[in-house]
């Protein structure tokens, strides 16, 4: 059974690129338009990996990660940040919130698939 990834980003084109890349590698992808939508979808169905942007309306990536880590079933689910931000300060905040990795945009599809395979197989 293929693994499921929750892709959270307020950019529709970015979500399409992520979904296209990951589906081509055999993963199922659920899309969410912001942190709040991501949290709602994560509660409805436990996924194998969460890939989230940082700067989104309603709920940003850091807030989403913190909220997910408070849910029992999401305490061990890998969460990767996919964002334009690259400062050490933001990465430290991401790590402290519970992120397992940090990917800086723009992403290369091949490298994205490699890191996802490394994290969830």
């Amino acid at each position: 059974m293929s693994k499921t990834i929750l892709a959270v980003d307020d950019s529709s084109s970015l979500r399409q690129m992520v979904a296209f890349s990951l589906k081509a590698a055999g993963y199922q992808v659920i899309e969410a338009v912001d942190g709040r939508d991501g949290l709602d979808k994560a509660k409805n169905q436990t996924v194998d990996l969460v890939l989230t942007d940082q700067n989104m309306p309603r709920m940003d990536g850091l807030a989403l990660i913190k909220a997910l880590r408070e849910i029992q079933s999401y305490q061990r689910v890998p969460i990767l940040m996919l964002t334009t931000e690259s400062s050490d300060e933001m990465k430290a905040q991401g790590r402290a919130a519970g992120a397992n990795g940090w990917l800086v945009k723009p992403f290369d599809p091949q490298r994205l698939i490699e890191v996802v395979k490394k994290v969830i197989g």
Partner: protein
Amino acid sequence: MANNKILAPQLKDLLSGVSNHGNQHLLEVEVDLLQTTALLGEAIDKLVTSFVSIHKAVNIQQEALDLLLSGKHPSEEEIKRLKNIHLEIGRHVNAVITNMQFQDMTTQLIDRTVKRVVGLREVLASLGNTGAKMLPESGGEEIILFLNEINSALTAQSSELEGAVRKVVSQNKMDSGDIELF
């Protein structure tokens, strides 16, 4: 007389404050727009290159299909070339996906520019509103108080605006970003 000695510096502060804050914000606007232009330019160049390459590769595949349909068999060299074309198309598609992300990045830059311009407009409107409270018969002391109020509001609003437009896109190139697993 004493009031004139206070009035002139206050007025000078206001004028230089408006100039400095305005300059600072407009410089940031210029930087963001130049960055947007650079990202757009590079993305479009790379997308055009990828499009042309994919088009060529697809034509080669079609030639091979036409050959097969005509009943002829491709040579070993042609077979090898066809196998490589598939990988080549994959590489170009990956490049397209990377460069299509310019839309996300430039949107964030433009949003920041718009916020800054709107913020500046609000600061100037605020200056005008405060100035409108001054009555024609206002004396020197009242004018000094108004100028003091305007100067404080200008500094506060300008700082608030700077805090609201944090720079989140530092990329000047469309090269794929770093990956770090914690």
